[in-house]
């Protein structure tokens, strides 16, 4: 048995780390609402009305406390004194300085992290184009590019997330055997690429791609 919900601290309630930036707090709050709102399929029949109300009001309290710099500072202080979290590292950006927070949440590296895979998976299952592509027996570089574009992801984003070089991603999408990295690397690259798009069945899709591109046209 874990702790009861009302025994969790606000970070635990929202499933975030104590150093979460405001963007993450807002995101986690919305995710929690999705779970606990009346009418949510996820928690259907899971709680009595009373339990649900109690949880929602705690979630609200957690959000309001953490989203406001001053109240969060005060709250952190009580957690630190209870030994539940550690005092923030000196070198970490001071939450009181709006500039540094701004900097973190807007930096390109940080931004990419926030395209949640849940959102991607939803897009994938709702896109006719992507579903059709995935239902084919072949999977070409052109198909991959189409899926990526459909999801609104840039090559640079993929490169950033997967650490695959941009020109390698291009050659995967162009499907030109001569320009591609050697097969041993290629397979791994393709898998990370597919994973980064938020696709399931990565093994099978990468095999499909490998078969498609190696077949003489």
């Amino acid at each position, binding site marked *: 048995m874990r702790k009861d919900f009302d025994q969790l601290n606000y970070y635990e309630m929202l499933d975030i780390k104590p150093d979460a930036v405001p963007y993450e707090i807002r995101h986690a709050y919305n995710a929690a609402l999705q779970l606990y709102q009346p009418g949510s399929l996820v928690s259907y029949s899971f709680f009595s009305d009373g339990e649900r109300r109690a949880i929602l009001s705690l979630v609200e309290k957690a959000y309001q406390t953490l989203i406001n710099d001053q109240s969060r500072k005060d709250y952190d202080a009580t957690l630190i004194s209870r030994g539940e979290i550690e005092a923030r590292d000196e070198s970490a950006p001071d939450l009181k300085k709006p500039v540094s927070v701004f900097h973190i949440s807007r930096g390109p590296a940080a931004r990419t992290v926030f395209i949640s895979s*849940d959102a991607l998976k939803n897009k994938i299952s709702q896109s006719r184009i992507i579903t059709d592509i995935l239902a084919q027996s072949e999977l070409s570089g052109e198909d991959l590019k189409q899926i990526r574009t459909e999801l609104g992801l840039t090559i640079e984003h993929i490169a950033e997330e997967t650490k695959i070089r941009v020109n390698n991603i291009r050659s995967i999408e162009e499907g030109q055997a001569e320009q591609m990295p050697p097969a041993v690397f290629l397979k791994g690259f393709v898998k990370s690429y597919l994973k980064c798009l938020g696709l399931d*069945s990565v093994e*099978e899709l990468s095999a499909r791609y490998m078969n498609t591109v190696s077949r003489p046209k």
Partner: protein
Amino acid sequence: MAHVWPIGGGKGGSGKSFITSSLGRLSAELGKKTLIIDLDLGAANLHTLVGVPDPQKGFSDFIRKKIPLLEDTVVETPSANLFLISGAHDNFDIANLSYEQKIRTLRAIAKLDFDRILLDLGAGTSFNTLDFFLISQNGIFITTPEPTSVENVYRLIRSIYFRRIRYCFNVTEFKELEVEADRQFGDGSFNRPDSLMKVISRTHPEKYTQLNIEFDAFRFKLIINQVRKHDNAALGLQMCRMMDKHLGLNMEFLGNVAYDEHVHDAICQQVSFLERYPYTKTATDLREIGKQIVESAGRQLTLRYM
């Protein structure tokens, strides 16, 4: 000893039998000697889904002691490596197995010589169904993205949890726990495993620890079937999160299986959906899940407490 995968969950029609037969086929194709057992007695149709329209023997012969050994009720299917114990011709419910019959069945299943054994348990939550879930760490729960089906899965999981707790105590002790839970947490809470556990943590700390170890060992899995384009694709992960956070139970999300009209077509034509429509999203989803299952190992918990 074989890996046993009890499969159950959402209400009738959610796809338990279709998925059991598909996973059985995949496991067989991947080289595992695989047995599927139809324990959804009274609503048995696994035999139809694996191309054995009129099985000559089955589970009822074992129960009626017409065939003394469970292994002798196994029939072949047209697919290599895939075997079946049919539930056809059974007109009783699994709920009506006597204690003695149940124990005899569980013992016999544990002794069968197969690599993988999949049990289609149907939709019930009778004590017998719960006990079949409790013989393995690897129970698989199947639901569709509909409130009725989700509700049934949650109910089933709570019942299994509850049943496991029940095994730790004798009748008098358990009565006391129920009364105490009712006193502390109010109406109906003796029905809630999490309330009971709270009481146990105070009244029987050693048993509490032991039960927690047991629950931590479960590797339940969740599959969302018949997922349509506009459904929330994250439902499965979110349900797992709910169970972890509010029941303290591990549940692993195995994946979504897309809805596809061709499933109906394949069943009507009595052909294997996976063979007939291999490039559909649904087939890909099934293969991905099949692979995870075939590769993963799990410990049996068989009968230790029954």
